[in-house]
């Protein structure tokens, strides 16, 4: 991503000096940190729901472009999409509970599915153009995408939560295509850029670290620590882990699969949107860019076997650095090289791991 800018002048000689080396490493780590977040979200969603989250890319795009649209003083279409999806989700909730309609459950469904997205939409309409405060715009974008993530699970995945991984994957591809189409409607075919969160820069010897990179490192580290605290020390975090470890065991103690799934999708969509908001000041994002970015997080998650969080984080940094260096040495083959990383990993894994039967719920 960011490497593209510095590359034009470097490409002539293709000789690596310290400045370029440090730049490439910094670029690789910045991108790698974002891939790490995405990879962690993918592992989380897969472990809890067995869904391979292809629409992760759309969470990135929606987050980034909603933020950029808000910064341009307009109301992003995603806020309206959230309201419509909320209405559908509410319909699903009412239909599912039709046999035992409790006032409390109904009120909860109404609050989550209708009141929440409507309030977010009204806030967005009121605040867009009236102010241009970066934290406010970020918060609004995150709320919008969080709502979309939550309702996406309710509408597309909760009704088929007990089917096979393959069915869930097909649904996931379908969601990705539909949401990408909506992305084109909302944001147009033109790319957008958002304002940087920090314009500061630090120079240490040959190394110039941009403020935005520091923001990326800081937020990634903070999110990883927050996730760790959530999973290890809160009841809901433990319930999510329990669902991932043993779905039947979790149900037998009264943890609803649908609750775990909703929390997992909520976290994944917020993480995706944060990643998008971190990238969009560095690089122009189009309605379909999120997919490729998400796929790189997916490469990291695959290297981590879709189960290991630390391995995924390390793999994400490797992916970022490989990407940075291949864009320097062979920029035309950058994506090819990154995605080819999967093949030796899969071969090694398939040799090391015994054949497993597919788990059904």
């Amino acid at each position, binding site marked *: 991503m960011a490497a593209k800018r510095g590359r034009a002048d470097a490409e002539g000689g293709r000789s690596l000096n310290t400045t370029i080396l440090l730049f490439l490493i910094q670029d690789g780590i910045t991108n790698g940190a974002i891939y790490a977040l995405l990879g962690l979200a993918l592992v989380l969603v897969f472990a809890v729901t067995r869904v391979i989250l292809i629409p992760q890319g759309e969470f990135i795009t929606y987050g980034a472009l909603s933020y950029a649209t808000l910064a341009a003083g307009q109301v992003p279409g995603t806020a309206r999409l959230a309201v419509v999806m909320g209405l559908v989700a509410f319909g699903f909730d009412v239909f599912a509970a039709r046999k035992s309609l409790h006032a409390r459950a109904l009120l909860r469904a109404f609050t989550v599915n209708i009141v929440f997205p409507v309030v977010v939409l009204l806030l967005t309409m009121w605040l867009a153009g009236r102010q241009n405060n970066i934290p406010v715009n970020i918060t609004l974008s995150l709320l919008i995408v969080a709502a979309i993530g939550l309702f996406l699970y309710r509408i597309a995945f909760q009704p088929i939560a007990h089917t096979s991984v393959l069915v869930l994957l097909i649904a996931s591809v379908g969601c990705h295509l539909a949401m990408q189409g909506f992305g084109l409607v909302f944001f147009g075919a033109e790319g957008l850029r958002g304002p940087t969160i920090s314009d500061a820069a630090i120079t240490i010897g040959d190394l110039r670290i941009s403020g935005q990179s520091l923001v990326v490192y800081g937020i990634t580290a903070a999110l990883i620590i927050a996730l760790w605290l959530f999973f290890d020390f809160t009841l809901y975090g*433990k319930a999510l882990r329990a669902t991932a*470890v043993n779905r039947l*065991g979790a*149900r*037998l*103690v009264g943890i609803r699969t649908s609750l775990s799934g909703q929390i997992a999708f909520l976290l994944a969509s917020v993480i995706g949107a944060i990643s998008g908001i971190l990238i969009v000041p560095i690089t122009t994002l189009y309605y379909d860019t999120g997919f490729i970015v998400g796929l790189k997080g997916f490469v990291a998650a695959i290297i981590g076997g879709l189960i290991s969080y630390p391995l995924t984080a390390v793999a994400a940094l490797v992916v970022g650095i490989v990407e940075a260096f291949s864009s320097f040495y062979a920029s035309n083959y950058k994506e090819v090289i990154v995605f080819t990383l999967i093949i030796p990993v899969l071969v090694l894994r398939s040799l090391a791991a015994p054949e497993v039967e597919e788990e059904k719920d």
Partner: protein
Amino acid sequence: MSATLLSVADTSISYGKVEAVRSVSLEVKANEIVTIVGANGAGKTTLLNAIMGILPQHGRISFNGQDLAGLDIEDRVAAGLSLVPEHRELFGTMSVEDNLQLGAFRIAKATAAQSFERVYALFPRLKERRQQLAGTLSGGEQQMLAMGRALMGEPRLLMLDEPSLGLAPLIVADIFKIIGALRAAGVSVLLVEQNAKAALQIADRAYVMELGAFILHGPAADIAADPRVVASYLGFQHAGASAV
């Protein structure tokens, strides 16, 4: 006579076209230990899973006066029904304490603290090992943890599926002693066992299951004395069970 807690009426359960359980009826009253004995493959586990909502069934199952039709596993847990399945289904990569805490997932925090004390009093071994990962426990300890986790949710009826399976005789004796103690604590028990001798000793009433149907039922002492049961389940081939 105390009130009926669980009532299973005319229930059939099929795997595809194969009928594994054929129109069985069963009752568990409050403060009662009821056992279902029978050979491997008789349909005992299938019946427990259907009562818990893991498998679909045809028939009427009600718990505490409430019809369970259409209720998910999680709703049945909330109603006070709990199953310790044959494979225990513990959270292997989480600590003993986390497993127990999740057992109390749906009850209030204040009550959960008391549940911890009660469970640790029943199973002091679990307290010693509370920081250990569940997957690293011995078989007997895992069974204790599975029972402890179920008890954390303060069930009114605990269903145990083969709690003695694969355990050393001394530990089996411990487990059965604890099952006996549960009645005093106000928990009813529905116990499925191949170890018929031990089960019939602690149970109030018993059902004998063969090929998906109950062939006998009545007070446990009468069942234990029934010549057919003695021949099939308490005879020579089960001599190992006498160690209990």
